[in-house]
């Protein structure tokens, strides 16, 4: 299967893809999404849930939360992206305006750079440990010394792979998809060999409030998968329509993330570490440790390729980057990741909690606004020309290119999240234990967006009420 109909220009731009170019079927999309989703972050997601919940409750809460989060992220960006073959950032122009989309674009950039820095540093650490385990390291060198070099090598390989655009993503996905079953095998290994301990293991940071613990497990799942909003758009724009993407997104991404997160959940509960590279050694010996290290390196590599591609396509929406060559754009996209990995890998790891907090606060309101706009205010009508138009009278121009209703709704949604849950300390208030923080934040942003749009008028909000709608 190749991207026969996809021109190189469209493949590496933020322009809409034509129907003939969107040739990813359900299977290919599911494989690409599962490959992209299955990475080190799954272990960290599982680890965080394992601080509060036992294995059965953690598995249920995480899976439920992940599927809810994917549903919201997909319903937010999915319809517009799949209908017109555009990426997630471009899909925000009807809500935020033809200049205001820079805010979601910045959120995407921070999210993807953060996740990919984490993945490549983690992958580099695994590669360094693998070399140590195989005795291939020169005397006097350890993982700490090798991580910057390994990160830069990984960045170089990703750069070369992505020079072919989405074709590179497809080819890598087809090869690296094999690591997903290996992940499930590792889970089976741990569950089958340590089941009695796993069944009785208790979380170390659990609150006396059982409902709070359970809700926090759901919240971790929702937050983690909602941050997949950028990836969803970049991948499903390759599908012929949104109907083809429904099951691949909900299962390929919504199910594979929580299933692989169980590796981290089980690991932290039984062996007090979520990293399979560490616990497989104690469960199965050095051979299994080597397999796990290869798995971690490969899994992170596949996901980072998708992430860098998504980020580069998102950057294409900036006028200044519209005309630069694809190779230059890739360099601009990879450079922050390479710099973080080469210069401050340990510092970035230490601050990772703050990064997760940002994801939770930012993406839930964004999803709420997009869902309200598409399904309620616009009743599923999107003007593709207006998304790309630079005409001062264009429908999505709003006030100087920025829609104040969307900005206010985003701010109020973020405030609602922070009122319910401090994502840095996990101290909560109000109805958090019944509702989570992400869902009320999304709902608050959605309701505020609808009310503000009605209050300010459709012209301000980015739709010209005075002009009748043309025929379908």
């Amino acid at each position, binding site marked *: 299967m190749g991207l026969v109909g996809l021109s190189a*220009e469209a493949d590496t731009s933020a*322009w*809409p893809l*034509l*129907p003939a170019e*969107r040739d990813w079927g359900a299977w290919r999309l599911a494989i690409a999404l599962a490959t992209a989703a299955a990475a080190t972050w799954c272990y960290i997601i599982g680890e965080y849930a394992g601080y509060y919940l036992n294995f*059965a*409750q953690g*598995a*249920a*809460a995480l*899976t*439920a939360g992940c*599927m*809810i989060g*994917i*549903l919201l992220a*997909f*319903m937010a960006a999915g*319809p517009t992206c*799949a*209908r*017109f073959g555009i990426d997630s950032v471009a899909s925000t122009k009807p809500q935020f305006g033809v200049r205001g989309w820079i805010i979601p674009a910045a959120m995407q950039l921070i999210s993807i750079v953060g996740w990919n820095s984490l993945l490549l540093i983690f992958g580099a650490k695994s590669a360094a440990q693998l070399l140590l385990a195989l005795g291939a390291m020169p005397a006097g060198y350890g993982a700490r010394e090798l991580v910057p070099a390994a990160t830069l090598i990984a960045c170089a390989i990703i750069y070369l792979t992505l020079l072919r655009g989405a074709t590179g993503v497809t080819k890598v996905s087809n090869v690296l998809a094999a690591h997903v079953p290996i992940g499930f095998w590792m889970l089976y290994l741990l569950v089958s060999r340590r089941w009695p301990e796993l069944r009785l293991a208790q979380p170390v940071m659990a609150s006396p409030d059982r409902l709070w613990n*359970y809700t926090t497990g*759901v919240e971790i799942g929702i937050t983690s998968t909602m941050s997949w909003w950028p990836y969803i758009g970049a991948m499903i724009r390759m599908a*012929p*329509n*949104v*109907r083809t993407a*429904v099951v691949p997104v*909900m*299962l390929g991404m*919504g199910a594979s993330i929580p299933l692989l997160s169980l590796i981290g959940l089980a690991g932290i509960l039984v062996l007090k570490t979520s990293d399979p590279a560490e616990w497989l050694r104690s469960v199965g010996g050095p051979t299994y440790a080597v397999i796990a290290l290869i798995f971690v390196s490969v899994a992170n590599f596949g996901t980072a390729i998708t992430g860098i591609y998504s980020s580069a396509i998102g950057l294409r929406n900036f006028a200044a980057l519209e005309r630069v060559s694809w190779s230059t754009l890739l360099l601009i996209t990879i450079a922050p990741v390479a710099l973080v990995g080469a210069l401050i890998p340990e510092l970035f790891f230490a601050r990772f909690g703050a990064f997760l907090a940002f994801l939770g606060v930012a993406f839930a309101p964004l999803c709420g606004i997009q869902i309200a706009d598409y399904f*309620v*205010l*616009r*009743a*599923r*009508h*999107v*003007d*593709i*020309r*207006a998304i*790309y*138009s*630079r*005409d*001062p009278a*264009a*429908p999505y121009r709003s006030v100087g290119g920025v829609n104040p209703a969307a900005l206010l709704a985003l701010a109020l949604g973020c405030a609602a999240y922070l009122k319910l849950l401090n994502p840095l300390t996990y101290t909560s208030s109000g109805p958090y234990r019944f509702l989570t923080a992400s869902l009320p934040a999304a709902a608050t942003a959605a309701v505020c967006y609808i009310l503000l749009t009605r209050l300010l008028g*459709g012209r301000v*909000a980015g*739709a*010209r*009420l005075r*002009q*009748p*709608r*043309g025929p379908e």
Partner: protein
Amino acid sequence: MPKPTPMPEPRPSLPRAADYLAPELARRIEILEHDGDAGDFDSASWFWLVLFGVVTPAALLLWGWWA
């Protein structure tokens, strides 16, 4: 529940001088405006969305709570 009133969108029109788009982008938009819209969710899509996004999580939450 009353059907939501859509915010009207303008009728597609030819680009003006101020609305200059790259020729290839303009060509793509023209095609998408006329017959390129891949369409929205159908009833089967909604079934899968509700099954995987609402029913399955609800069932899992109930099971997990009593587990």
